[in-house]
């Protein structure tokens, strides 16, 4: 088990955003987390990456209890998140942004190889290498966020809505890239509004509703689950 979340609750002040959720991610998997707006998907990601402390419960990663570990140390363990929306550094160029992704790494040769790989995955980023991140289009920023997270060479990649705000063509492309990254050996936990795509690509999936996990199962099976269909796929 690469990631194991047990009975985690999280509070924003007095608002309880997570009510004791449990989920696991196995090595080599793509696991999707779907749910409506405000269900607590991003909050779950924040709990895993550590930028929000959990109130109760335990988080284990690669055999280690990381519940109380500082976020930067979790990155060093191999856990990296591409944040929701425009979580890139606006004043830094594309290359500098990617370089920040490798902040915890010292192996120069490995970093250079990963940079080449990321630029190959996202040729658009290569074209804009010197441009400040803040002047990229929304879709390009999204690619930059994913590429930057890859630069840490994570064992587990946390993606929070990588397809947000992308044109249909680009959505297809980003999901193919996610599959490709996974096939190259990176485990992925994927948060998505785009449930159709996410469930089709994921090995397993969890459905989150108002801070609780209400359903879980094989991705392709959930895709045909009537309740899921009605709530998240827009078909009755």
């Amino acid at each position, binding site marked *: 088990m690469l990631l194991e979340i047990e009975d985690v609750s999280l509070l924003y002040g007095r608002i309880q955003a997570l009510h004791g959720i449990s989920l696991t991610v196995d090595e080599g998997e793509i696991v999707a987390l779907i749910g409506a707006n405000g269900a607590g998907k991003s909050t779950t990601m924040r709990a895993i990456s550590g930028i929000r402390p959990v109130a109760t419960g335990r988080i284990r990663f690669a055999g280690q209890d990381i519940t109380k570990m500082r976020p930067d140390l979790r990155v060093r363990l191999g856990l990296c998140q591409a*944040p929701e929306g425009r979580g890139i550094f606006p004043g830094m160029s594309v290359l500098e942004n990617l370089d920040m992704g490798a902040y915890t790494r010292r192996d120069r040769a490995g970093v250079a190889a990963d940079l080449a790989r990321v630029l190959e995955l996202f040729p658009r980023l290569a074209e804009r290498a010197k441009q400040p991140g803040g002047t990229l289009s929304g879709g390009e920023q999204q690619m930059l966020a994913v590429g930057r997270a890859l630069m840490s060479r994570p064992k587990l990649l946390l993606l929070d809505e990588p397809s947000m705000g992308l044109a249909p063509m680009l959505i297809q492309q980003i999901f193919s890239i996610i599959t490709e990254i996974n096939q190259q050996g990176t485990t992925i936990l994927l948060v998505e509004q785009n449930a159709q795509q996410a469930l089709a690509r994921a090995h397993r999936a969890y459905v989150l509703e108002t801070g609780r996990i209400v359903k879980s199962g094989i991705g392709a099976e959930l895709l045909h689950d009537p309740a899921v269909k009605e709530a998240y796929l827009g078909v009755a």
Partner: protein
Amino acid sequence: MSGAAERIRSDWRSVGERWRRAPKWMRWAVLAAVVLFFYALPNKEFYQYLGPIPTTGSNFGQVLFTVSIYVLLAVGLNIVVGFAGLLDLGYFGFFAVGAYTVAVLTSPSSDLKTHWPWLAVVPLAVALTMISGISLGTPTLRLRGDYLAIVTLGFAEMIRIAATSSTFLKGQRGFNQIPHPPGEYADGKPVFGVLDARPYYWLVLTLIILVVFGVRNLTRSRVGRAWVSIREDEDAAQLMGVPTFKFKLWAFAAGAAIGGLAGALYAGKVNFVNSQNFELLNSIIILAAVILGGSGNIVGAIVGGGLVAYLIERFRGIELFGWELYEFRFLFFGVVLVVMMIFRPEGLIPNRRRAAEFKDRRKEVSVGG
């Protein structure tokens, strides 16, 4: 935004572009000339040819010393505000800690009666300000948002009130006969005397150059990258594995240490320190100077600090329609700040990144609004 403002912005930008594209030897030559100019500046043989630049109301060497202290403070505060993006409203408090450490340990009017030499106390003063910075930052820098601004404001006020009312710190009566820095000419006269302010100015100028080189190297290292990332997006910095708390604390402590150094230099020059030297306004002036010059850019901070301190002094002794201009210095200053915010919010000499961050924010505002 109006067309005029846009045009002024792009004109300025092309100057910066040309500077960056100039060959290396040329930039070094310009830099050497500028440094030479400032070393020569306090000599009458030189400044008499500079028209209206030398001050009329007060001794020019004296003014230059004051200006150099402000520049050093601006360089220090720029690390905190400009590089790490932390709002410090009480920076002058660290200056006070530095000055008072020197006063208490060297002055014969101190209760401690240690009478230590000035030079021995300077490292101690710097260390102590750094420690006060760390103890102030440790509880506050873990929190996000405006706590730091409030706490630093409170800190500076606390120091001022302690200076005013504690018997140990002597209030208005203050500490006198603080020793000068050491050094003698061949004929036995001290280098750092009472009348001539120039040696003090040269000392501060030299220290500024050293500090600037140190800071510049720091900003080009991993430390600098970490600071920029924190300033631009603290959450994202954390997600990339930057130990944000540690680096914020470092920036805060480094800034504090430089403030303390400035205070120690100041005390060694004026040889009298009392509670009137540390008004809140001073903290605000330095902060405004950093923002005016272009926060996040070392040259910007130097220009901002120098310009603001110099202009304030320049107003002294000038009368217009029977009004002493000096009395209006802060009004003038406020107007300049407002104009700047309209035409050039990123400062006179902005950091390239910083300018992009501002553009990013402007875009957000126009999209969102």
